[in-house]
C-alpha cells in the first residue's frame, strides 16, 4: 500500500480505478446481486400475503401495536443519516477525508430512505389507502391531521428523500459526464442525458460549486430534523418509555452512530473488492472511528439519562417500565444492546484498533445489531409494558415479519449493488481535487 502511495497518481489512473467496477461484472457480483434480489422478493411475497390475509400474520397484537416494522423503519431512517452528515456537514466544514466516502454514504442514504419509506406502508392495516396520509386537495373533503406525528413523518421523510436525492445527483454530474465520455452507444446517450451537457468549463464549475454549497447548506438542518421528527413519533406518545424530551437528540445521535457503522460495513468490503485502497485509506477509517466513538458516548449518555430521569421523576409507572426494560422479559436483548452500543465501541479509544479493519468491520456489525435492538427495545418492548397491568403481553415477531425484515435488507443491497455497477462509487473529481490541492499533501502525509 505504501508503494502505491509513493507513486504519483495520474488523473486518468484515478478515473480508471474508480470506474473499474463498472465495466466487468464478476461472477461473485452477479451471485450477490441475485441473492439480494431473491431476498427482496421473499420480503415482497410476505408483504403480499399480509395484505391479502390481514395484519394478523405479523406477530404484533395488543398491547404492542407496533413491532419490528416500525423498529426497522427507524433503523433504516437512522442508517440514512450519515450520508448527508458526511456529504453536507463535513463539506461545509471542509473536512478533507470526507471525499473518499461521501458518494457511498450518500447512495446509502438514498437507498436506506427508500427502504425505510416502505415500512409505513407495510405496517398500516389498509396500505391501499396510504395516500390518505398525503395532504392534497381532493374531492373527499378530507384532510390530514397535522397534530399527528405520523403526518410530520410524511413530511420529514419526504423532504429528506428529495433533498438527499438532488444532492446526490448534483454531486454526481461531473462524474456522469466522465462516464459518458468513456462510453459508447446507448449507454453514452443515457449517461449523457443525466450529465446535463456537462463540459467541465470554468463557468460550469463556478455555478456547480455554488449550487453544491447551497444544497449542502439546505441538507444540513435535515440531518437534525428528520430523526428528531421520527423520534417524536414516540416522544409525543404517552407510553412510558417513549414519553421523554431527550428523544430528539438521542435519536439523532443514535442515527448518526448507526449510519456511520453502516458506512463502515459497506465500505470495508467495497474497498477490498474493488481495490480502492489508494483512495479510501486507513486515515479515513481512523476519522470515522473517532466519530463513531464520539456518537457511542453520546448514545451511552442518553441511555444513562433515560434511566436516571425515570428514577428521578418518582413516577412508579415510569420506574417500573425502565426496570422492566433492563430486567424484564426482554432483558437479554437489552444487555446485548448495551454491550454493543456502549461498551464494544470503547475499544476505539486505541489507535491500533481504529486502524484494524477487521476489528472495525466486526464492530460496525455489532453496532448495527445493537442499534437495531435499541429500536426494538424502545418501540415494542415499551408498548408491551404500559399503564394497565391487565393487558401486559409479550411480542414476538412472526415468520412473515422476519421475512419482510430480511426482504428490506435484500432490497437495500440490491439497490446498492446496482449502484456499484452503474454509478461511480467515489466522486472522481473530488478525489482528483484532493490529490492535487494543498489538503492533498496533508492527506498523503496522514495516510503514509
Amino acid at each position, binding site marked *: 500500500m505504501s508503494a502505491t502511495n509513493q507513486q504519483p497518481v495520474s488523473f486518468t489512473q484515478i478515473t480508471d480505478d474508480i470506474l473499474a467496477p463498472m465495466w466487468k461484472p464478476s461472477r461473485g457480483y452477479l451471485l450477490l446481486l441475485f441473492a439480494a434480489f431473491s431476498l427482496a422478493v421473499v420480503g415482497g411475497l410476505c408483504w403480499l400475503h399480509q395484505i391479502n390475509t390481514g*395484519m394478523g400474520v405479523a406477530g404484533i397484537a395488543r398491547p404492542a401495536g407496533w413491532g419490528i416494522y416500525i423498529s426497522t423503519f427507524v433503523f433504516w431512517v437512522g442508517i440514512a443519516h450519515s450520508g448527508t452528515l458526511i456529504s453536507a456537514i463535513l463539506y461545509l466544514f471542509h473536512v478533507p477525508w470526507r471525499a473518499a466516502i461521501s458518494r457511498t454514504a450518500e447512495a446509502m442514504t438514498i437507498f436506506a430512505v427508500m427502504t425505510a419509506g416502505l415500512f409505513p406502508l407495510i405496517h398500516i*392495516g389498509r396500505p391501499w389507502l396510504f395516500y*390518505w396520509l398525503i395532504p392534497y386537495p381532493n374531492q373527499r373533503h378530507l384532510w390530514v391531521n397535522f397534530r399527528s406525528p405520523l403526518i410530520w413523518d410524511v413530511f420529514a421523510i419526504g423532504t429528506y428523500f428529495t433533498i438527499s436525492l438532488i444532492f446526490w445527483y448534483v454531486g454526481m454530474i461531473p462524474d456522469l459526464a466522465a462516464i459518458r465520455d468513456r462510453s459508447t452507444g446507448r449507454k453514452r446517450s443515457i449517461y449523457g442525458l443525466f450529465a446535463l451537457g456537462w463540459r467541465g468549463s470554468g463557468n460550469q464549475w463556478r455555478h456547480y460549486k455554488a449550487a453544491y454549497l447551497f444544497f449542502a447548506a439546505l441538507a444540513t438542518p435535515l440531518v437534525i430534523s428528520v430523526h428528531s421528527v421520527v423520534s417524536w413519533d414516540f416522544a409525543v406518545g404517552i*407510553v412510558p418509555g417513549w414519553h421523554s424530551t431527550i428523544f430528539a437528540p438521542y435519536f439523532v445521535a443514535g442515527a448518526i452512530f448507526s449510519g456511520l457503522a453502516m458506512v463502515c460495513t459497506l465500505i470495508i468490503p467495497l474497498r477490498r473488492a474493488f481495490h480502492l485502497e489508494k483512495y479510501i485509506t486507513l486515515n479515513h477509517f481512523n476519522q470515522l472511528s473517532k466519530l463513531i466513538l464520539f456518537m457511542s458516548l453520546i448514545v451511552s449518555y442518553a441511555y444513562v439519562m433515560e434511566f436516571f430521569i425515570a428514577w428521578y421523576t418518582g413516577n*412508579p*409507572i415510569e420506574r417500573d417500565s425502565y426496570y422492566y426494560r433492563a430486567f424484564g422479559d426482554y432483558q437479554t436483548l437489552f444487555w446485548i444492546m448495551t454491550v454493543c452500543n456502549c461498551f464494544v465501541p470503547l475499544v476505539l479509544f486505541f489507535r491500533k484498533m481504529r486502524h484494524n479493519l477487521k476489528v472495525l468491520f466486526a464492530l460496525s456489525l455489532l453496532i448495527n445489531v445493537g442499534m437495531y435492538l435499541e429500536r426494538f427495545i424502545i418501540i415494542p418492548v415499551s408498548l408491551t409494558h404500559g399503564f*394497565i397491568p*391487565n393487558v401486559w403481553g409479550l411480542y414476538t415477531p412472526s415468520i412473515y415479519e422476519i421475512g419482510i425484515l430480511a426482504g428490506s435488507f435484500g432490497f437495500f443491497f440490491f439497490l446498492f449493488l446496482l449502484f456499484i455497477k452503474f454509478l461511480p462509487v467515489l466522486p472522481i473529481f473530488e478525489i482528483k481535487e484532493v490529490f492535487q490541492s494543498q489538503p492533498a499533501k496533508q492527506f498523503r502525509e496522514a495516510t503514509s
Partner: protein
Amino acid sequence: MTDSLRRRDFLKLVGLAGVAGTVGCGEQPVRSLIPQMVPYEDIHPGVAAWYATTCRECPAGCGMTVRTREGRATKVEGNPQHPISRGGLCVRGQASLQGLYNPDRIQQPFRRDTGGAIQNISWEEAEEQLRERIGALQEAGEGDKIVFLTGRNGESFNQLADRWLGALGSDRHIVYEAFSQAPILEANEITFGTRAVPSYGIAEADYIVSFGADFLETWLSPVGFSRDFAQMHAYRDGRMGKLVQVEPRLSLTGANADEWVSIKPGTEMFLALGMAHRIVTGKLGVTLSSGEAQGLENLLAPYAPDSVAALTEVPGETIERMAREFAGASAGLALGGGVAATGENATATQVAINLLNYVTGRIGQTIRFDRPRYTEESAGLGSLAELVESMNQGNVKLLLVHQANPVYNLPPALGFADALQKVPFVVSFSSFADETTGLAHMAMPDLTPLEQWGDFRPAAGVHSLMQPTMNPVFDGRATGDVLLQVAKQLGGAVAEAFPWENFQEYLKERWKETYGESAGENFEQFWRDALQRGGVWDSSPSSSSAEAAAGAGSRLRLTSQALRFSFLPAGFAGQGEFFLHLYPSIHYYDGRGANRPWLQEIPDPITNIVWDSWVEVHPETAGRMGIVEGDLLRLESPAGSVEVPAYIYAGVRPDTVAIPLGQGHESYGRYATGLGVNPAVLLPAASDSHTETPAWSCTKVQISKTGRRSELVRTDGSVKELGRGISEIIPLSALTAGSQGEQHGEPAEQHAAQSMYPPHEHTDYRWGMAIDLSACTGCGACVAACYAENNIPVVGKQQIARGRHMAWIRIERYIENIAVNSSVAPDMRFSPMLCQQCDNAPCEPVCPVYATMHSSEGLNLQVYNRCVGTRYCSNNCPYKVRVFNWFEYEFPEPLHLQLNPDVVVRDKGVMEKCTFCVQRIREGKDHAKDEGRLVRDGEVTPACAQSCPTQAIMFGNLLDPESAVSRLSRRQHGYHALEELNTKPAITYLPRVKRI
C-alpha cells in the same frame, strides 16, 4: 335442505311469514306473533320489535326481552318488569342467541341406521316412526315401558308430557337437572315438614353466611341474587351488609365476600352446627320453647366449637366470632348448597343450615316459606339409578330424552351410557348433537327456547311466558307440538285426549283454565298483556309483607325428625392426597353453554382462562410438587383419571384441587367438542344419602405430573394492579369514621388550564358513565352483551394467546391478596374497562387521518371508513381499550343472522372500540327529536349497562346535573382511571368499599 337456506331466502321467508301473520290470512301458528313489548303491529324495516320471553339457559327463569329486526332476533336483554331478573341478564342468558343461531344445531330430524350412519328424514317420517314404535308397544301391552326423561320445564309442558305418557299407559316421566336442589327440598321436609325451596331475603339481610352457595354464579337464581346482593352489600347510611363465604375454593361469590372461610371440603355441615351450638348454649339467638331448646342442646351437644374446629380446620375463634356476628345481626341469613358443596351429606348440610337459621329466628324473616321459590322435585340420582337399572333389565323399550344430556353430565361411573345402549329405541329431542343424541336412534330436534311457546314458573307467584321471537332457523319442531301430533296420529282415545291443534293452543287453554277467573271476561286482552309483559306476577313479590312473614314464620316449627337427625360426615372415595372440588362454571353451567362461542371466548372471571379446562392448585402444593402453570397434570381417582393443565391459584386450599365443570364434550358442535376435560369421569357413583342426588364432592384424587405441557391461554397480563389507580378500594372504616378520605384527584375544571388546546365544547349532551366497583361482581354479563350488540367477532384460542381478543369491554381482574385461613377479606378486584371517552383523549391527536375524533357529545368517534390502520391510537391509549381487526373475521352461518344491523361489521385493517353504543344513543335522540325534547335520563342505556345484574354501570348525560350519572360522578370518592394522565375520562369509577 337447510344447507341451502341462505340469508336472503331466510329473510324472504321470514318477511313473508310476518306479512302473512299481520294481514290475517296466515296459518294458525303465526296469528299470535303480534304481541310485543313495543306495540308495533308488524315488521317495519329498520325498526326493532321487542318480544318478552323467559330465559331457559338455567332453571332460574329470568325474564328476557328479545330485540328482533326484520324478523330475526339480534339481542336479548333482561326484562326490567320481570320480578326475578329485574332487567339484568347474565352471561349465559346473553349467549342464548348463540344457541338459537348455533351452526351446529341439528337442522332436521334424522335417524341412525343399523350401521350407525345418519340418515336425514322428514318430520312426517320421524313422527310416523315414533308413532309406530308407540303403537307396537301399546299393542304388546308395554306402554309402561316408555320413559320420558326431561329437564326442568314449565308446568304446561310438564303437564302435557305427563298426560301424554298417561294416555300411552306410562307414568315414567323423569325430570332431571344436573344441578339438583333436591337436598334443599328434602332438608326442609325433614326440618320443617314443608317440601319447598323458600325465597331468600338476600336484599334485606345484613349478614349472610353462605356455605358453598355460589349465588352470584349458578346457584338457584344468580341474576336476581346478584341484584339483591348488590343492594345488601352497598354502603349506605354508614352501614354495609357482610357476606361470609364458607367454601374450600374461593369462588366468584367468595371473591365478592367480606370474609372467606376456607373450610375443609365436606365439613360445611359441622361449621353450621358448631355455630348453632354456640348460639343455643350461649342463648345468643331467639328464645326457644323449652322442649325445643332441650332437644336442640342434645342434638348439638357433640358440636362444641372446639371439636368443630378440629373437624373443619376452621379456627375456634372464627367459629365463635361468626356465631356471635350471625346471632347479633338484625337480619342474618345462612345459605347453603351449590354444586361444590353437594356431597354425600348434602341434605344433612342443609338440615344443619336450617337449624342455624332456626335458632336465630331467620325462618319467616329472611327465609320465607310462604313464597317458595319452587316446590316440585327434580329427580335425584335415585330415580336415575332406578332408570339405569330398569334400562339394564330391559324394562325400557322406548326412551325419550328432552332437554337433558345425562350421558355427558352424569358421572360415567353410573353406567348411564351403557344402559342406554340396551334400550331398543331412544329418541332425542335435543336441538344440538350432544352426547346423548349421539347414542340415540332418532333425533327430533326441538326448537330453541327463543323459537317456541312455553311457560315457566321460576318462583311462587311468578308465571313467566315464553313465546317465539322469530320463525325457526332450522327445520326443528317444538317437542310439545310433536307430542300432540303423534297423539293425533295414534288415533282413538289417545287422539281424543289431545284435542289441541298445537302446543300454543294447549298453553293458552291451560292459562285460560288457570287465570280465566282473574282475567275477567276478556281473556284475550289478559293473554296479550301477559305476553307483552312476559308473564303474570304479583306486583311486588320480593317485597316483604310483615304480616305474612310473621304468620309463616310462627307456623314453622322444628319437626321431631329434625331433632333426631343424625349428621354423618361426608365420605370421600379413594386414598388420594387431594380433595376434588368440582364447581359449575359461570359460563357453561352444567355443560350446556360450552357450544356458545362467546362463552368460550369471554375469559373466566376468576382465572381469566379461555377455551379450556384447568385444575386449580394452591401455590404451596405447586411449589412442593414443582408444578408450574400449564403443566399437564394427571388426576386419578378410584373412578377414573383425567389429564388437565394446572393453574396456580391461591384461592384453593392446599389439600384441595378444583376443576370447573362444563367442558370436555365429546360431541356438542365445533365450539365445544374436544375442548378441555369433563371431570365427572373422576366421580364414583356416589350420591347424597337422603335424596340420591349425584354427589359432586365425594372423591379424593392423586396428582402426578405427566411431564407434558398444555399452555393455558389467559387474558390477564399481570394479576396485580400495582396501585396504579385503575381498580381502587376504599376501606369501610374510612367511610364510617366520617373521614373525608383521600380526595381522588381534582375536579376536571382545574385541569383545563393545563391543555394547549381549548377544551371541547358540548352543547346538549356529554355522555358519561359511572361504574360502581362495589356493585360489580365481575360476572362478565356486560362483556357478553357487548359482543351481541356490537357484532364483535370471536377469534379463538390461538389468537387470544397472541392478545387479539376483540372485546370492547373487559373485566380486569386483579388478585391483590388471597389467603387460606385468613380472616382478612379476600382482595380480588374486578373493574370493567372500556373506552373512557376521554375529553382529552390521547388517541385523537395521533391519528394522521382523523379517523378517531371528538364528537360534540363527548364521544371519541372511530370512523371505520376513514381508518388506515396505523394503530398509533391503540399504542397511545393508556387504557388499551382499542382493538384492531387483524383479519377478516367470519361469522359462520347462521350466526351471522344475529348481527346487529345498526352496527357495521368491521373490515380487516381498521381499529375499533367501544362507542358507548352510539347506535342506541342515536335511536334515543331520534325519539326525543320526534317529540321535540332532549333525551331523558335513563332513556338510553348501552348494552353493558343494560345487562348488568347489579346495575353497577350507570350511563347518562353529564351536562344534566340531575342525571343519575352526574350525581354518581360527583360522589366524593369517585375517581378516574389513571387520573394523573389528565385524559379527563367520561367514566367515573366509584371505589370498591372494602371491609378492612
